[in-house]
């Protein structure tokens, strides 16, 4: 009965992971034969690769900010929206950025953050008189990561949004009425005692989703910071992987990076499950 699902899962999910695992122990550049090298890829990765450490740092900062902030923002937006009348129009407005591709949105944002005098922010600041020269948003290593984070937060508002909205609409109003009778005063108490506990599955789903996708950020960082970004300031783990796989043609090393990323996101996912899930057998 579960055979169809299992076949799909095995072929499209399990098999690539296993192949990546196998290739990560070899040295493979697609022109010459695969050479088994054992753990040397991992040794190099953890002990000798300073760019990877930069990428790890960047990605962690990025995820720690974008993951939770995007999560809370989308929850807050869903909560506010749940009580408005024109729900569908607003919901579309909030969700639209997530449907469009990351690169398309980044083009729009790179106009706002354009590093010359005519970029919208620079223009505004210069006209007001706060600064004299345009700030090089996408070229100054100090500014690249914050810019990417801002854009990614904006784009991730719609991530769990629909799920939250659906979850909130599933809570029957009887609960709220009973609570009102029992003496709940403000909306925040409502939120804390009724909405959040009843929405645990949705919270779990959205949390895992937002954290794991924020670890795989690549298109946003590349379209804003360039590839590779100046002094690797916007370099994320996936950008590092792409570099090794498609610019340097070292598939073994790239697979090692992929396996490390997989382990990180898996561990985080399990941690979130333990924190947020209902049942004990998760």
């Amino acid at each position, binding site marked *: 009965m579960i055979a169809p699902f299992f076949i799909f899962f095995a072929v499209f999910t399990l098999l690539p992971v296993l192949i990546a695992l196998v290739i990560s122990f070899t040295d493979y550049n697609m022109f010459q034969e695969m050479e088994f090298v054992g753990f040397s890829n991992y040794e190099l990765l953890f002990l000798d690769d300073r760019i990877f450490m930069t990428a790890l740092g960047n990605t962690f900062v990025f995820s720690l900010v974008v993951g939770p902030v995007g999560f809370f923002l989308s929850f807050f937006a869903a909560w506010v929206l749940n009580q408005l009348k024109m729900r569908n129009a607003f919901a579309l407005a909030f969700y639209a950025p997530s449907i469009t591709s990351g690169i398309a949105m980044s083009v729009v944002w790179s106009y706002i953050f354009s590093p010359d005098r005519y970029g919208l922010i620079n223009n505004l600041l210069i006209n007001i008189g706060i600064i004299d020269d345009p700030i090089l948003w996408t070229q100054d*290593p*100090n500014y690249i990561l914050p810019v990417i984070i801002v854009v990614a937060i904006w784009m991730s508002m719609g991530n769990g949004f629909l799920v939250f909205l659906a979850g909130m609409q599933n809570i029957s109003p009887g609960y709220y009425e009973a609570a009102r009778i029992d003496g709940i005063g403000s909306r925040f108490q409502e939120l804390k005692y009724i909405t959040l506990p009843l929405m645990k599955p949705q919270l779990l789903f959205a949390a895992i989703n937002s954290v794991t996708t924020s670890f795989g950020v690549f298109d946003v960082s590349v379209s804003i910071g360039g590839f590779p970004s*100046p*002094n690797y300031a916007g370099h994320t783990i996936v950008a590092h992987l792409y570099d090794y796989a498609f*610019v340097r043609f070292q598939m073994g090393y790239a697979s090692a990076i992929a396996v490390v990323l997989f382990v990180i996101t898996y561990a985080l996912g399990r941690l979130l499950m333990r924190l947020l899930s209902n049942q004990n057998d998760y």
Partner: protein
Amino acid sequence: MEQSDGSVNRASGGIAGECDIILAQTDKAQEAWEFLSWWTSEKTQIEYARELEALVGVEARWNTSNVNAFHSLNWDSEDVRVFEEQWKWAREIPVVLGGYYTQRYVNNAFNSVVVSGSKTPRDALEEAVKEINRELKMKQDEYGVTGNE
């Protein structure tokens, strides 16, 4: 860039060129060659360029692959002279194993000196050269150019 004997070296790279290749694995090599010879011949290129310009307008006046064909199109003779002079100076940066690193680290060095001001030029260039050499050597070893497998 003025040279030591007073002449000016106008070499510049970054030319967005196109080329046609015939893969060695094909079994239709002779036909491919004949097709390409026909396509890049003067007559065909002139015909194509003229038809394109007739259909789309002056903006479609394009750079034909055949130099002789280029002369026969409706370019200003003054413009043609300038173009020919420019072509003489077209020199592309040679592609070496690991060459992508050069541009990357030169950019990084420039950035750390000019934009963020975090390094002196000497430091930045020294580190850049070290990294570039390391990568070039690694790639040469990998593909067996230097013989140290």
